[in-house]
């Protein structure tokens, strides 16, 4: 038994490896994967790499131009911009890194279950999903953050919940394409339970779609997270965050250019990297992503 399980999991790893290699072989995939990898490494090793303490203020060195000591200059409180740019993605990557799998799990499972259940329950639940999708997401996010605070314990479940809702639709639609096939009917005839059918028959068939969808949602979640910080409702000030840095730096843009340009380049390169990788992943798995592009 354990031998079979092991063989199956090693096959899975092999397939994952193949897909990854195929993604990396495409120009956009190679660029995307290296950008994402670079940012993850930077976020993980950043605390040991930064030249200065990101919170250390120095009243004598405010809004300095780039120099050997501060190679992106200093901000309006005399903090080293380069150090803050290096660590500015940590919070965003931690929160979205936890919330994306959460969204995929609950959205994917609900979508699969609804697709399998069909009938009245499915119809009624989809109306609720439609209603949720018509609500402005950023507004819900803002109201919840205003009420419950901006700690990661609030942000992770909130983002996970909100971004899982569109995944329900995608997972359900993907399930509908396989549900009519013979092997599902066979599994039903064998008397398998709903959970077994979902895990053994449906999941392997919708996994590719879900993976691409998840990659896409990750980049949008990052966007939402930094927008929240930019608007002043996200990460609390002493912590460095790109969105917050851009919001603060905008005021002193003509004096300290890098206070804006640094976080702008960092944030854009991460989000573009995720999208390039997701695009290449979609092509490798043969999924048309443009058709699923919903604002």
């Amino acid at each position, binding site marked *: 038994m354990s031998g079979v399980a092991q063989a199956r999991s090693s096959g899975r790893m092999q397939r994952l490896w193949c897909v990854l290699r195929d993604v990396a072989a495409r120009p956009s995939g190679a660029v995307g994967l290296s950008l994402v990898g670079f940012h993850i490494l930077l976020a993980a090793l950043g605390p040991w790499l930064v030249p200065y303490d990101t919170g250390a203020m120095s009243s004598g060195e405010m809004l300095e131009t780039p120099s050997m000591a501060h190679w992106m200059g200093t901000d309006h409180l005399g903090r080293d911009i380069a150090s803050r740019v290096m660590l500015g993605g940590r919070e965003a990557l931690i929160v979205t890194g936890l919330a994306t799998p959460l969204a995929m799990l609950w959205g994917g499972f609900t979508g699969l279950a609804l697709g399998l259940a069909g009938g009245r329950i499915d119809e009624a639940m989809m109306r609720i999903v439609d209603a949720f999708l018509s609500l402005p997401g950023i507004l819900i996010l803002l109201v919840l953050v205003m009420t419950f605070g901006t700690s990661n314990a609030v942000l992770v479940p909130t983002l996970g919940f909100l971004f899982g809702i569109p995944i329900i639709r995608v997972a359900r639609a993907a399930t509908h394409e396989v549900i009519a096939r013979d092997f599902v009917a066979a599994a039903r005839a064998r008397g398998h339970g709903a959970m077994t059918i979902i895990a053994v028959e449906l999941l392997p068939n919708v996994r590719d779609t879900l993976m691409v969808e998840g990659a896409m949602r990750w980049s949008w979640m990052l966007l939402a997270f930094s927008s929240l910080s930019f608007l002043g409702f996200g990460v609390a000030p002493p912590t460095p965050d790109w969105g917050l840095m851009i919001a603060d730096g905008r005021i002193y843009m003509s004096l300290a250019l890098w206070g804006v340009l640094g976080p702008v380049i960092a944030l854009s390169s991460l989000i573009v990297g995720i999208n390039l990788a997701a695009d290449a992943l979609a092509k490798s798995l043969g999924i048309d992503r443009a058709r699923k*592009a919903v604002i």
Partner: protein
Amino acid sequence: MLTLLLRRLVLGAITVVIVSLLIFAGVEALPGDACTAFLEREAQGALLEKCRVDLGLDRSAFTRYFEWAGGAVRGDFGMSAGGTERIATLVTDRLKNSALLAACALAVGVPLAILLGVITGLWRDRPVDLILSTSAILAMTIPEFVSATVLILIFSVWLRWIPGIVVAPADYPISAFFPEIILPIIVLSMVMTAHILRMVRSSVIEVMASDFVQMATLKGVPYWQVVFRHALPSALLPAINVVALTVAWLLGGVVVIEVVFNYPGMGRMMIDAISDRDLPVVQAITLIVAVTYVGVNLTADILTMLLNPRLRTYHMRRR
């Protein structure tokens, strides 16, 4: 055809009802109400009770929902939490400004997106497609506040061509927003062009490979006639839905852009209401945005049904 239309209308109406229930229940579930927000923290005991009675908050949630929903149907959203202004008048100006921004962005973005989408679709994988498609990914994914900041840096700080922020208040006439409105229009149309372009491109590729287009080509119809007479009418159909999503997104208040450029539209109103904990206004805006979303998508679905060549021939054959 008629039953399809009716079914779609009923579904839309059900969604609107569920949305209103969700919003009302959501706001109810939040700690605090209009009175605690209005009277701040010091309010306790008798004062709070009196305020609740005055505003009718002591009645059951059931009664209040019907009163609120009934008012909303007639376009009356009650008073803001401060109790000084009617929400309906506040919203009208903001909605007008958001509509102005949306109309300008659509006028620039949609024709451009369709043109570029058809070009990239027809010349798939050629240099022009690679350049445009890559730019589309960039335009689509770079956060709006990033591209907005970069544009302000270039056009307002360095070149000093256009002011970086709008200074006119919400109730000023349309002309007061020019030329400041140009930068937000550029940012918005960049994002929407990218989305619509990708959709049109993949749709054109799919239709050009379909049987009826191949058939027309094999029958010797000239290439450009195949493109314009046979392919494009079907290929542009799915674009309607993406355009609808864009319209809903634009009217729903592009929060970040409106904050960046200080533009007095629905998005800024949202942020202000949330910062002030003005729950009646938040409730009203959410409902308006959600109903706009449902309405625009409904219109798009119905338009698609009416314009779909397959449904059209069916209709004509019956006559």
